[in-house]
């Protein structure tokens, strides 16, 4: 069943409501999400609709779940064994928000080996000429990114991601402002997951970081050890 190609009424505002309600047809949903990634006002619209529509659940009576539900959840997420020591001390080591990604990353990648050597990567685009050189210094735990070729377009900030393995979701490392180069200092636990990992950059809508990459990656590259003599 095809829908009218043009917005019928209310334009993007109605589309945001339809999106939150799940009424947007699948074909338009993709286009809407693409538009959403670059439009802070539309993002705010979606958040506002989500807040309002969530109140539709207010009249639903509370029901205590059976006790076995919590037991099953805890077994699934904590496992039967005690937490590894680093999981217990982690809250005291690193900042709150960053810790989530790191703890999770470390948990899933199982990497706790210190990077013995410096690392480097060339992030190259599937198409176009975006090329970034990445270099990680283990001594200072800093990751430096330098654009090559045409460099990063000035009005187009990028967000840098770490992908620790095939099944690992990207973890945001931060924004790359349009400049000659950017140096990021990585917390130890994050630095430890670098060897063998992929680096990737996505377009950062409005220069703001997002929880998940928006759109396809602009460029990707694998970190490999720098040969030391």
């Amino acid at each position, binding site marked *: 069943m095809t829908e009218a190609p043009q917005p019928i009424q209310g334009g993007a505002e109605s589309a945001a409501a339809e999106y939150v309600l799940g009424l947007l047809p699948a074909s338009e949903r993709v286009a809407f999400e693409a538009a959403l990634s670059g439009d802070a006002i539309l993002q705010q619209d979606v958040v506002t609709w989500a807040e309002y529509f969530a*109140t539709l659940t207010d009249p639903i009576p509370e029901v205590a779940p059976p006790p076995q539900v919590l037991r099953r959840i805890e077994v699934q997420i904590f496992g039967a064994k005690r*937490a590894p020591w680093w999981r217990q001390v982690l809250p005291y080591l690193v900042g709150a928000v960053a810790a*989530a990604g790191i*703890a999770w990353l470390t948990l899933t990648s199982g990497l706790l080996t210190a990077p013995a050597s410096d690392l480097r990567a060339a992030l190259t685009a599937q198409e176009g000429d975006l090329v970034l050189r990445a270099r990680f210094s283990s001594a200072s735990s800093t990751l430096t990114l330098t654009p090559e070729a045409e460099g990063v377009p000035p009005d187009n900030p990028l967000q840098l991601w770490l992908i620790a393995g095939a099944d690992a979701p990207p973890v945001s490392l931060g924004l790359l402002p349009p400049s000659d180069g950017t140096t990021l200092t990585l917390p130890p636990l994050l630095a430890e997951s670098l060897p063998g990992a992929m680096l990737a950059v996505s377009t950062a809508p409005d220069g703001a970081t997002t929880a998940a990459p928006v759109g396809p990656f602009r460029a990707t590259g694998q970190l490999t050890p720098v040969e030391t003599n």
Partner: protein
Amino acid sequence: MTLQDEIDAMIAGVAMGDRTAFRQLYDRTASKLFGICLHIADDPGLAEDALEEVFQTVWAKAGLYRANGTTPMTWLITLTRDAALDRRQDEPPSDEAETNGQSAPWDPAVRGQGRAEAELLAACLQELPPERAVMLRRAYLEGVRYAQLADEAGMPEIGMRTVMRRNLAQLRDCLSQ
């Protein structure tokens, strides 16, 4: 500290792998969220599955929720709604309409700061034709789509969408005042 702040702090604790915070968050919100699961999935076993998925997601992604931009309770409710809708079995539409037009007391106790929004939305929904307000609730709470709404109303899907979009624009104007 408001309830929203408390839940916010619990989620921050969960983000750091704090199991006590996780248990507190569960104790504080599970009944509300399980009620939603039961209402939407309409089956105790499926509702339990949905709730398990929600709290697994919370444990895995608590550190990311701020990027989502919503208040913590809305984040949890949205996760719950999506998980429960995924499990909801399609039912004959005739059973649905009766139960959803009814008015129930607005009791946003767990949502805390959401009270003003709940009252404003309720007031603005009253300005819509009553059957449209019901449709809108059913879209959110039952996952019905335009095709089904159009079918029930005996009108073409595109026509249903046109009027619904007009009503959504009207709703937005009312909420923005």
